[in-house]
């Protein structure tokens, strides 16, 4: 066994060590990197921008803490943006932990001085309808009747008592739906049930894993825009001018990608050289 054979069967733990270093080091470095905007993020931003103040937006938090590093920065930016622009937000979750994530996002959004200035109020500027089990069937039921599907908000207040919910009957009273999704139920179900069945205008923020699966919907116009993973989050932060964690984490991301690519190159070099040696 020569050096390259050994390199091909390198102990996993050495790779692990390099990955850890690549992720941790950038936290302690300060490098600025340029962020370019991709069309699907622009599409989402344009859809948000086209809404006049006072428009009603539904944000569905369909993820749990496991996907929070990617989706939480998007959620926070979206909340900050809506609050400063005077858009009214109706929150719900198809994942049990979704509405908790929503509250956390609002908490951090409220710390921003620009949001503080607007002083958004619960019930008037946003409501949290909480979690409802039933996956895509919840979406379907909302298509015919939102107050029947969610008779109470997460604190147990009847929805009739919430000023923001006045006049909200079904998706036709909601100007835009933004879905933050980490799997099932998520964007696919929102497309199939809200966009396809009830013609709601829909945009989404997805984990980077899920995002490629959504391109067909994006191309077919069933989705107006898409944020994919941390890069999507950082682009959205740049467009909305709310620089946050998405931008900060992006540097670690770049390093980590670089380290994986270097490993793939080393692996292939080792493979070809050791094969060449054997042929001789």
């Amino acid at each position: 066994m020569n050096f390259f054979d050994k390199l091909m069967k390198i102990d996993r733990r050495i790779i692990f060590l390099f990955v850890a270093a690549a992720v941790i080091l950038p936290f302690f470095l300060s490098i600025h990197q340029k962020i370019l905007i991709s069309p699907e993020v622009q599409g989402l931003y344009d859809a948000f921008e086209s809404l006049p103040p006072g428009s009603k937006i539904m944000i569905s938090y369909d993820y749990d803490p496991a996907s929070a590093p990617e989706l939480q920065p998007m959620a926070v930016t979206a909340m900050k943006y809506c609050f400063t622009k005077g858009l009214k937000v109706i929150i719900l979750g198809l994942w049990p932990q979704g509405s908790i994530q929503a509250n956390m996002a609002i908490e951090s959004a409220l710390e921003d001085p620009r949001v503080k200035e607007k002083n958004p109020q619960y019930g008037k500027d946003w409501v949290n309808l909480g979690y409802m089990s039933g996956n895509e069937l919840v979406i379907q039921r909302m298509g015919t009747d939102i107050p029947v599907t969610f008779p109470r908000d997460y604190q147990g207040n009847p929805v009739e008592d919430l000023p923001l919910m006045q006049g909200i009957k079904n998706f036709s009273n909601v100007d835009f739906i933004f879905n933050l999704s980490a799997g099932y139920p998520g964007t696919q179900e929102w497309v199939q049930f809200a966009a396809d069945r009830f013609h709601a205008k829909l945009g989404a923020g997805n984990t980077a894993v899920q995002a490629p699966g959504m391109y067909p919907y994006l191309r077919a116009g069933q989705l107006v825009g898409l944020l994919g993973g941390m890069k999507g989050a950082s682009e959205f932060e740049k467009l909305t001018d709310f620089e946050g964690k998405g931008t900060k984490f992006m540097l670690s991301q770049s390093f980590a990608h670089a380290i994986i690519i270097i490993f793939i190159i080393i692996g292939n070099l080792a493979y070809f050289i050791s094969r060449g040696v054997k042929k001789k």
Partner: protein
Amino acid sequence: MKKTKFIILIIPLILIFFNLSSPQEKPVPLPPTEVKAFDTPNDNGHSLSVTWKLSPDDGAGKNNVVAYEILRAESPKEEFEVRGMVPSGENLFDDKGSREKEDKNYLPSHKNYYYKIRAKADNIFSESEVSNPAFAYGQWYHTGKTPVLAGVIIFSIFALTFITLARKGKKLYIRPLPGIEAVDEAVGRATEMGKPILYVLGLGTAADIATIASFTILNRIAKITAEHRTTILVPCYDSVVMAAAQETVRAGYLEAGRPDIYKEENVFFVTSMQFAYVAGVNGLMLREKPATNFYLGKFYAESLLLAETGSIAGSIQISGTDEIAQIPFFIAATDYTLIGEELYAASAYLGKEPVLLGTLKAQDWGKAVVIICLILGALAASFHFQFFLNLFRVQL
């Protein structure tokens, strides 16, 4: 509700206040005409629709109409009640009622209603004539869903035809799938090594077709393991799935004629939370060191966590899922992968029962129809033949 009405009233007033030319001098906008009420098509019979011809002042001149208000009454003489509002330029409104009697929004079937449309310009408005009477009734067929019905019929005909042909003993060829061919070898390896086989059904519930398809494969594999007297471990993510998996494995042992060596505790529940389940299964892999791991069903982010740990444990791994995002991980980290549709075909492959192969043939015919539609569609689209595209439009 009162508040909204108040705001609707107050905004134009404020506008007027700042407008120097008094709008009272403006003539009233011309009313909309040709108001027609009719039953909303394709619903359960608790909704009416109204259309009208736009007011001549809509979108032109100084008497610009800003919105239309839709009013309804039970008879032309009664007082009309506002049912909704649409912005100018629109001429259709669906007056959706509730089907619950207790609901204040209740709209009964088979009861006549009359409509009026109000064209609003700032704070002044004009009203149309009263519409014809119309009543709501439920439909027994949703016309917008015809393309889906056609699909159901076409596919069912294919399936039934080939099932019948297969029953009559017509030989059907199927091409080899490497992942399936490897099953016997993989079970044999476990027998030689005297180690168990691990079968993971994934994160699906019994309400996922992928999981149900995986049951059939599990049944075949359980039968082979029973014949070889090899242990099969099935950690489950969902309680209902566990119940069904127990039945499935038991059936496999029965078919192999070895119900005596079936152990129910080998098909067990772990937990219904994704990563806790992974933690448990990973621990199992590192401690039991199974010779072969099967991952067939619904998989999400845990796919690679399982597959890499299995590779650390030195197992042969066969995987398959219909979650497109996870297929690459399985391809990278396991020895054989069933891609998407192949997972659904696998049960037919393993069973070799003619009827199952018949439905496989129907799937192929389905694909042929899709391909033909794509070719015709591409030609139609190139020559701007919109009609063809509309064939696939489903209204809901």
